[in-house]
């Protein structure tokens, strides 16, 4: 399996809203930790090493643009 790049979400706006609301409910430095928890939960759920590696590499590439 490879990383899904096409949309895979039924209601993207609602999910995005919930994500931001969760992060904004924390103080800025706590928000970093909350987003770390979220990343870890999702990474474990995905589990597939190849997909995770690809996502990490893709995220790294984009920050350089």
């Amino acid at each position, binding site marked *: 399996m490879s990383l899904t790049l096409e949309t895979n979400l039924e209601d993207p706006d609602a999910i995005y809203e919930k994500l931001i609301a969760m992060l904004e409910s924390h103080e800025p*430095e706590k928000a*970093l*930790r*909350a987003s*770390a*928890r979220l*990343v*870890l*939960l999702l990474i*474990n759920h995905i589990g597939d090493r190849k997909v995770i590696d690809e996502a990490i590499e893709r995220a790294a590439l984009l920050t350089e643009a």
Partner: protein
Amino acid sequence: MNVETGKAAWRETIPVWRAFEPSPKPETEFEQARVVIVGTGPVGLAMAIDLGQRGHEVIVLGRFDFVPAGSKAICFSKRSLDILDRLGCGEQAVEKGVSWNIGKVFWKDRSDPVYKFDLLPVKNQKMPGFINIQQYHMEDILLDRLKQLPNVQIRWGHEVTALDTSEESAIMSVDCADGAYRIETEWLIACDGNKSSVRDLMGLDFEGRIFEDNFLIADVKMKEDRPSERWFWFDPPFNPGQSVLLHKQPDDVWRIDFQLGWNIDREACIKPENVNPLVRAMLGDDVEFEEEWYSVYTFQCRRMQHFWHGRVIFAGDSAHLVSPFGARGCNGGFADIDNLGWKLDLVLEGKAPFDILESYDSEAIVTADENILNSTRSTDFLTPKSDISRAFRDAVLDLAEDHPFARALVNSGRLSTAISYPDSSLSTADADVWSGGIAPGSPALDAPLDNGWLLEKLGGRFVLLTTTPFADLPSGLDVLDIAQEPANGLLRERYDLQGGGAYLIRPDQYVAARFRQPTGAAIADALARAMGEQA
């Protein structure tokens, strides 16, 4: 040397556990030797036992004339105990040491651990997962064993001051209390530690990372009824924002490692008036304790590019350094000498080409790299180097209590286990299908037999472990016929031998090859490869 007192400066700064008479200068000014080991630490002494019990004349040079006290290695792994048992002193170490298998990780002021591990997941083995024992006790045990080997000569207070190497030999100048002399040796094994003078004299160095965090080791004496387990705290109330590690040692001595952070006054932080309150806060007001030894350290995760340099071979801390979290320092050194001993024995006996030492270099580097990798990862988890790294570390700990997956990410040190060499040039790849068992390049797993243990019977030579006896074996290969062992069920299970077959096991108890349908020719071929003959 201080000319006036005749005493070296280190006598003033290094605490002495056991002092010896300085050994006299040998009668010849220019001595000839086959093997000289430099270093009287645990790695040098274990190397001397290994070669000594194989019958070689060995000279061991130690620049100290004492066994040092102070806070040094304490945790010895199952694999090290298996090696020590082969060297004839494993039982003494277990008897003196504190055996433990369980590690617990705590966070903040929570009384329940967020993570727990068992270092001996496969039970029914002779040796425990780990023992804790002060390095000076370990050295005493090794020295006791050496008393039975008159062919090993230890020279206390003999320091190598110059070294000249050629293709045929290494010639060293040695200083001792009664003057200087020279030794020409076929082989020089440098087990002289982190600050190896042999490495310096050869102009060689380490490559890798140095960490700047500081740790205080408080070895304290107290009567406490805690269990024999490794306890680790992240951010406990008694050392806020930092970590703490607790280990039990023999003689009611406990080791406490306090992480201190980056900018500290190294002299001030080991003064009792500064250490005692830290210990007191941790133990509570009602526990009596006294100082055994307080010291502070930083650490490095580095190694030499190669450990084999012609007539000079490096083993232990002289070749590689790791952080102490994971107990991979001295255990890594024992792995080195275990790997080197039988190979150098074959070379000394003219039974293997020099090139077999290339496999020491590559296998010991596999071990060192795995130790450095694990130790570097632990260090980055223990002492995050950035805000984002700390946020993720704390996120792991946030999740660990209620989310089993996160416990696997908690890294308080991955403790030393035996390391496999999957790509070893000495191994013969599997030609048959195996479900489990022990793959070539991996260490033999112990199993109980009716009378003793498998690893005891493997000893320190090539052995064919087989379910059926058969003729036309290579000469000199010892056979362990499983059918002659009544209680062999666990052995057959652990080696996937219920259907029959054979394992060729190296003198360091690593699997060299295995066969479902062994033939004399296939075994002879695998044995030749394991002895360094190139195909």
